[in-house]
């Protein structure tokens, strides 16, 4: 064997070794995520309200604070994924006084928590604290995924709490189109006995939630995702992004049993929110009472919340100022993907900035 062939083989071997080392590191460690400085200002049970430390002086900031409300079964740090690629960081730099409501991970003792508790016990208290902390009488809300359900219900039930702007990101609100909603089919009462599941587990286990989300696109999630990493192991930027996203994707939390029951029975099966028959602590959720300025952001290739689930809400609300933005991308990609900082975030800022003065 010639010496050049030998050195070529050694180079190949070293490169392969480095690749495997990177792969091992990415798959077995957690990425450094949620790095934007913040302070804890309120807690209740597992919920925490954070205030992000502003980077602009008060006179350059928008006077209306913005509260971020993410889904109950995922960690909210997807909004602040990694430095240089964080929605939180972007909004702070645009001069927003930013707050985050982190629901935390419910324990078995929280299995009876319902949407009623989250929308009428936790949210009003967190908002009360936000107002007290910021000194503002009005505020904006951004709800993403299940967080959009919570913010919509809250906004319809408490329209006089000072909510000026409501942003709904990939909001699953309309469950009437049974053909397009795969989750709805899986949890149909003919096949899915929710009472037996909750009797066995109490809360909906995070593993089942993760499986449900991934099984919607099994090849892409279980195979394609890892092949993409393998193909790009020599590209540090792709590896860093993949690592951060994988850290978030595999860090799900349980969903309180009471909420899961309402989600399946009231929403997926009976579409009560859009029908106007949803009851929260004895109050009917009437969407026409929602009067805040409304921005609905739809992800065109969303397979978790298909566009048909978010398109109709603006027709039902009582708001006079409603805007719908359609962005090419998936459920998470539109906010945390590589194009988010160019497409989604500036559009949200443009809409909200003019309404936050």
């Amino acid at each position: 064997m010639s010496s050049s062939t030998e050195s070529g083989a050694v180079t190949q071997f070293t490169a392969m070794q480095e690749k495997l080392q990177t792969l091992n590191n990415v798959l077995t460690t957690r990425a450094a995520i949620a790095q934007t400085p913040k302070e804890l200002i309120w807690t209740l049970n597992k919920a925490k309200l954070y205030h992000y430390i502003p980077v602009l002086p008060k006179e350059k900031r928008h006077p209306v604070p913005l509260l971020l409300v993410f889904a109950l079964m995922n960690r909210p740090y997807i909004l602040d994924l990694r430095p240089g690629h964080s929605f939180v960081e972007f909004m702070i730099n645009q001069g927003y006084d930013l707050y985050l409501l982190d629901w935390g991970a419910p324990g078995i003792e929280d299995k009876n928590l319902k949407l009623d508790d989250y929308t009428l016990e936790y949210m009003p208290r967190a908002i009360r604290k936000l107002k007290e902390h910021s000194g503002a009488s009005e505020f904006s809300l951004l709800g993403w995924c299940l967080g959009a359900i919570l913010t919509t219900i809250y906004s319809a039930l408490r329209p006089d709490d000072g909510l000026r702007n409501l942003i709904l990101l990939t909001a699953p609100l309309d469950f009437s189109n049974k053909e397009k909603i795969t989750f709805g089919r899986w949890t149909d009462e003919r096949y899915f006995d929710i009472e037996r599941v909750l009797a066995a587990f109490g809360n909906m286990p995070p593993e089942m939630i993760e499986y449900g989300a991934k099984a919607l696109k099994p090849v892409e999630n279980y195979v394609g995702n890892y092949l993409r990493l393998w193909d790009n192991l020599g590209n540090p930027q792709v590896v860093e992004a993949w690592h951060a996203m994988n850290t978030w994707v595999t860090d799900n939390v349980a969903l309180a049993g009471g909420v899961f029951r309402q989600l399946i029975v009231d929403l997926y099966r009976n579409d009560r929110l859009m029908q106007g028959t949803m009851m929260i602590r004895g109050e009917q959720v009437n969407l026409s009472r929602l009067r805040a300025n409304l921005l609905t952001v739809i992800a065109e290739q969303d397979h978790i919340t298909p566009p048909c689930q978010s398109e109709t809400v603006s027709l039902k609300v009582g708001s006079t100022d409603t805007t719908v933005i359609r962005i090419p991308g998936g459920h998470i990609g539109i906010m945390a993907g590589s194009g988010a900082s160019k497409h989604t975030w500036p559009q949200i800022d443009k809409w909200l900035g003019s309404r936050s003065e």
Partner: protein
Amino acid sequence: MSDPQAEGRKTPDPLEPFREMRDAYMDVWAKAMGGAVNSEAYSKASGAMLESFLTTSAPFRDAQKKMMVSALEQLNMPSRADFISLAERLANLEMLLDDMAEKLNQVHLLAVKAAPQSAPKDKAEVLKAKSGSSEVEPLTKAAPHEASAKTAKKRSR
């Protein structure tokens, strides 16, 4: 022999055709699987699997639960149910405290607003100067904020 990189050409990757083939196969596979999981048959099958898991695991789960409760009782240890009940009571207490803090805050605001009318003129002026405007600083604005920030720091350690 000329160097392809020096000429600005990309070094040919011998695995590229295989990669393209693989990606094409993946696309077809993804479409087929996407259609499969979206079908009535998949929903029925996954429901049946879940049902059989719950049915077969239920007796073991129940037996384990009973055994654990009795073992904890024998050891004079609190059971999971005891902890759940305690946690629920703590959550309720937290809510009561939150409401009380808010009420105290309101009382404080009212008291401070009323103070300038009854207090001597110089004291009223001091209060006004302290608040900076007609609006007064809420009682709980700084204290819990600092306390919770300290708690957060402690937790992060």
